[in-house]
């Protein structure tokens, strides 16, 4: 017994350390694998065309140049116009910000009603909204085009906002409803006895509680809307295209020499906002997703 007791701990410690290092090695390998494309994009975007042609794909740039970034931002050609990504980037901002704000607010309101003001048919409505989350985009393209046309919103930025808000409501409602069902019903009762009405209870009691789920919803919606290509390409016209559509045009419509460095810079610019949102608010995202399930 004494022998075993004295000899086994170092051995177990050694094994544990080995496992730990293997774990780190595997995780590191995967991280490298996922980061490699970003690395290639970044280095390529900082190289001149000659260097790209001459050098290897994963080599670091010898002479760092920012001119591909400037070109991508303000003078790359999307078809016949050569204004770079800039106008389209602002289109995307003008689409994404109102659409995210509106769909988040509507989702919060819907979730509040469905979770806390149980009414006849609440479950049915919630099921239908959930169903809405799973309807493929392609199915609604033609009816939506008709509808936008009838509303006089075809090819406009408000039209795209409308489409994204409608498509977002299913998800945002689901998020908020699942968050609000964990809030005890007594809270609403107490507020009612205190004299607060429907909106007062929402503003004073539920919204202040909702920060984690608002962060989740905003990240989710922003990523969805910013990265959307299908709606953007279907329901826009020359001046109202979002950045994703412009990126596609830059990459696909160049004639003659393929400017890989400009393409890479443009792609990074287009992806930057979602990347920033994740880096800044990512930890709240994970926290918010699990907030409903754990008490306290």
């Amino acid at each position, binding site marked *: 017994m004494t022998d075993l007791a004295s000899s086994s701990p170092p051995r177990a410690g050694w094994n544990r350390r080995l496992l730990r290092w293997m774990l780190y090695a595997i995780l590191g390998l995967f991280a490298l694998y996922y980061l490699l494309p970003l690395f290639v994009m970044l280095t390529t975007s900082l190289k001149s065309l000659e260097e790209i042609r001459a050098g290897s794909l994963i080599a670091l740039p010898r002479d760092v140049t920012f001119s591909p970034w400037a070109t991508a931002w303000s003078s790359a050609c999307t078809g016949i116009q050569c204004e770079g990504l800039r106008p389209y980037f602002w289109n995307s901002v003008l689409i994404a910000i109102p659409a995210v704000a509106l769909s988040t607010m509507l989702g919060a309101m819907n979730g509040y009603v469905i979770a806390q003001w149980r009414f006849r048919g609440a479950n049915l409505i919630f099921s239908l909204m959930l169903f809405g989350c799973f309807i493929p985009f392609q199915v609604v393209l033609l009816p939506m085009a008709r509808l936008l046309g009838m509303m006089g919103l075809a090819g406009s930025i408000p039209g795209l906002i409308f489409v994204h808000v409608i498509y977002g409501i299913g998800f945002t409602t689901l998020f908020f409803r699942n968050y609000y069902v964990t809030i005890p019903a007594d809270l609403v*009762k107490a507020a009612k006895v205190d004299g607060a009405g429907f909106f007062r209870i929402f503003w004073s009691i539920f919204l202040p*509680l909702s920060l984690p789920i608002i962060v989740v919803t905003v990240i989710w919606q922003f990523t969805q809307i910013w990265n959307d290509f299908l709606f953007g390409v279907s329901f826009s016209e020359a001046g109202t295209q979002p950045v994703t559509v412009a990126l596609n045009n830059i990459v696909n419509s160049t004639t003659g020499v393929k400017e890989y460095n400009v393409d890479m810079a443009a792609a990074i610019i287009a992806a930057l906002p979602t990347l920033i949102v994740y880096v800044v608010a990512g930890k709240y995202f994970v926290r918010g997703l699990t907030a409903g399930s754990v008490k306290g």
Partner: protein
Amino acid sequence: MAPILDIRNLYKNYGATEVLKDINIAIEPGDFLVLVGPSGCGKSTLLNCIAGLETISGGSLSIDGRDMTHVSPKDRDIAMVFQSYALYPTMSVAKNITFGMKVRGVDKATQARKLGEVAAQLQIEQLLNRKPGQLSGGQRQRVAMGRALVRDPKLFLFDEPLSNLDAKLRVEMRTEIKRLHQSLNASMVYVTHDQIEAMTLATKIVVMKAGIIQQIGTPAEIYNRPTNLFVADFMGSPAMNLIPARATREGAATRLEIARNSGPPLVLMDQTAPELPDQIILGLRPEDIAEAGFRSGSGVQEAECLVDMVEPAGADTFVVTSLGGKEVTARLHAETSARARQHLSLAFDISKASYFAPESGQRLN
């Protein structure tokens, strides 16, 4: 005086299920009404109906003479304390207490004055800037009470407010609620499933079962003269002994014969009982069975019983024996010489007896 709360023929249905059936209650100003019953008996639903948080399916309800049947909760002039406290999590204690006044548009100076009064009364001044999450259970309970007190309502409603507290704190808060009731002379309706809470707090108790009122009365009436077997069994701890017996008339007296596992049946004579059917259930509280020689009175009769078990409980010692096929508990003094599996002479105070019909469960005397 007009009743402060008057409920007439109240019904509550959820679809086809009747949750409350023909509820009639009236209480006077200053009354402390306790709704008590096992879980699922409809007592909390009734309280929610009084608060206006549930609509009622039939009947009427008035508070202080005003018909409130279709009035929304905020206009009923009530305050409510919830089992989960229901404090607003993002607001400080002070904001929690003043939220109702803020909603009703009470001016800032009055808000501050009332907050100060209530905080002093409940000794929570040092907690005013904290959030509910930073408070202990007992402190949360106090804040919830403060939120109700600051309203100065016609009627206080309590929904099992003490059931989330530990045993010691529960007793403390019980005393505090009672003191509050006396000092404010307020009218209160209090829901609990704890019959001891009901007995200690109430001036009037409503015992409910399956949505039907079983009995309304003062704690003494409910305890001494339960109207049926359910109330007899539910109220009191340990519960009332309910012993099957045979009743026969002997002149003016009633002869009660109780079967025993061994030996001759136990015979008790009641000189004052009314006409009883042949088969009855005799109800005797544990304290109405004492050790022989420690109880005297016209109805006291002594008999040898075989003790099954002795349970010392500090101030009292409970002795369990078997009569009529049922376990029967007697409450003896702490220094009793009773020993398990030995015979002991017990004194039955038959003048305190309740008689019930075995089938219907209704009281017979």
